């Protein structure tokens, strides 16, 4: 089945993603921010679908929206929102922020220009029906070591978080 109205979907999803991302940092109420974050993540999942990566989209929904944002909300509900709302929302450090953003932009452009050779001409496109299998193959066969190292890192982070958070183990 051929995709229909692809650009409109793209621009729609992109607009939702950007707008809700802005809402995430603009809202004073953290719960509202978290809800805006959900919209960002969902529209990103839509974008993944458009890139013929349904597996990534599914995982995006399950892990980020269903898991991580739920945990965000869990933590937000446990803390004192009242005092947070009286905090300054912005620190008025425009200069530093601008510099950092510009630096990041420059970095992106530099990487893209310098390393054009390593980017393929077109996005890697797996056959849609075999998408999940292909992702699995890449993760567990082609890039097994980096994948395992990443998971080890996460494990270390979890253990560290537990050690830091628990007063008594």
């Amino acid at each position: 089945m051929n995709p229909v109205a692809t650009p409109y979907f793209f621009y729609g999803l992109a607009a939702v993603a950007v707008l809700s991302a802005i809402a995430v940092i603009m809202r004073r109420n953290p719960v509202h921010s978290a809800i805006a974050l959900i919209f960002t993540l969902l529209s990103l999942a839509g974008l993944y679908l458009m890139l013929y990566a349904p597996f990534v989209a599914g995982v995006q929904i399950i892990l980020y929206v269903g898991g991580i944002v739920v945990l965000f909300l869990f933590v937000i509900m446990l803390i004192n929102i009242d005092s947070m709302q009286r905090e300054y929302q912005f620190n008025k450090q425009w200069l530093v922020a601008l510099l950092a953003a510009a630096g990041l932009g420059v970095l992106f452009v530099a990487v893209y220009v310098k390393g054009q050779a390593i980017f393929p001409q077109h996005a890697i496109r797996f056959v849609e029906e075999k998408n999940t299998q292909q992702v699995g193959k890449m993760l567990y066969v082609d890039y097994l070591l980096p994948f395992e190292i990443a998971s080890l890192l996460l494990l270390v982070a979890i253990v560290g978080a537990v050690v830091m958070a628990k007063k008594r183990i």
Partner: protein
Amino acid sequence: MLQNFLNYLNQNVTPGQAGAYIWVVIYILIIFAAVSVAVIAMNWLERKILAHMQVRLGPMRVGPHGLLQPFADALKLLLKEDIIPTGADKLVFWMAPVVVVLTAFTTYIVIPFGPTHAVTDMNIGILFMLGVASLGTLGIIMAGWASNSHYPLLGSLRSSAQMVSYEVAMGMAVVSAVLMTSLTGLGVYGIGGTGDTLGTLSMIEIVRAQMNQHVWFAFKFFPLGLLAFGIFAIAMVAETNRAPFDLPEAESELTAGFHTEYSGFRWSLFFLAEYAAMIAVSSIAVTLWLGGWLRPFPHWLGGDTWDTAFSFFPALTFFVLAGLTLRTTMRMPKHPYFKIQKTGLGVFGLLLGAIGLVLLAPPVRDRIQDIYWFTIKVAGFMYMYIWYRGTFPRYRFDQLMKLGWKFMIPAGIGVLIATALAGVL
């Protein structure tokens, strides 16, 4: 145009795959209507069955044997004053029931009621279902937080913790079923056919794999399939916040949990979503472990004769129901006071009988088969839900967590590893 519209009927794929958008809309409408009716029926059945378990009659006044009670309730809920607490966060308070209902109904897109009776078939079907189902939690959390009240807040805290923990166990069980689609090993039964060595996440393909391997996954690699099925069956009760895991809405502790502050129509949305979600997760269980739309023993009792014999079941079921209804009608008191009720029940019985007759007609008979077997299996789960509620006390929060993390998740991982080993050995 019309030809285009009718062409789909001869196709062997779901309307989504066929690109028949009109049919997609029709399917969605049918499913929405059917699920709504199912929820109404569940409401009545739950009250009646629970009542009979508890030595009482349940609703008896509104319509014969309380048959119209759900409609009366629905009417009452729609007409009730819609209250938004003063301190509530209005936007989030408004969004919460919408989110819950949307997610509950979105899952139905991929549920295969038959090989072609699904809105569409996604190649990440089961992943999509789990993902969307997990979004329902967000609605509950939003409801609890936006109410600006302590009981809903505690309810939504419980809900989020509970759902996040049980989703893991649920996922493990699901993965082991998905794994089975790619493993053609025969297990202890020694029966089986050929299967695709490539696994799949598509709901329809999972059922097809069970058909090709000649075994429901609940009985594959005995007892591994059964274990995974059991883990899922427990986790899905926790996912849908039903007894004995109904902590987020534990009425004796948190009055009504996360929906304490909701009333009228908004509350009825939560109710609708809860039952829709129950049916949805039961559908997952049926699809993954109980052979989806497949009738019992399609191979052992194969052949045209058996096919024909089994195809009478839907009509038979309706006849039995009609018979029960008519018998009850006869047994109603002779007093003229009961005339209207008696007539109503009689007409209802005849209606059931008429449906049964329609189901006898060969073309209908053949097409309704899959849906019938799927529905019957889901109905079994629905009955279990009611039974649990009548039997079990409620778990405490820490015990629930302990069960989830210390038993369900390790067991799920163990079953997953064992399944993988059983497949390659």
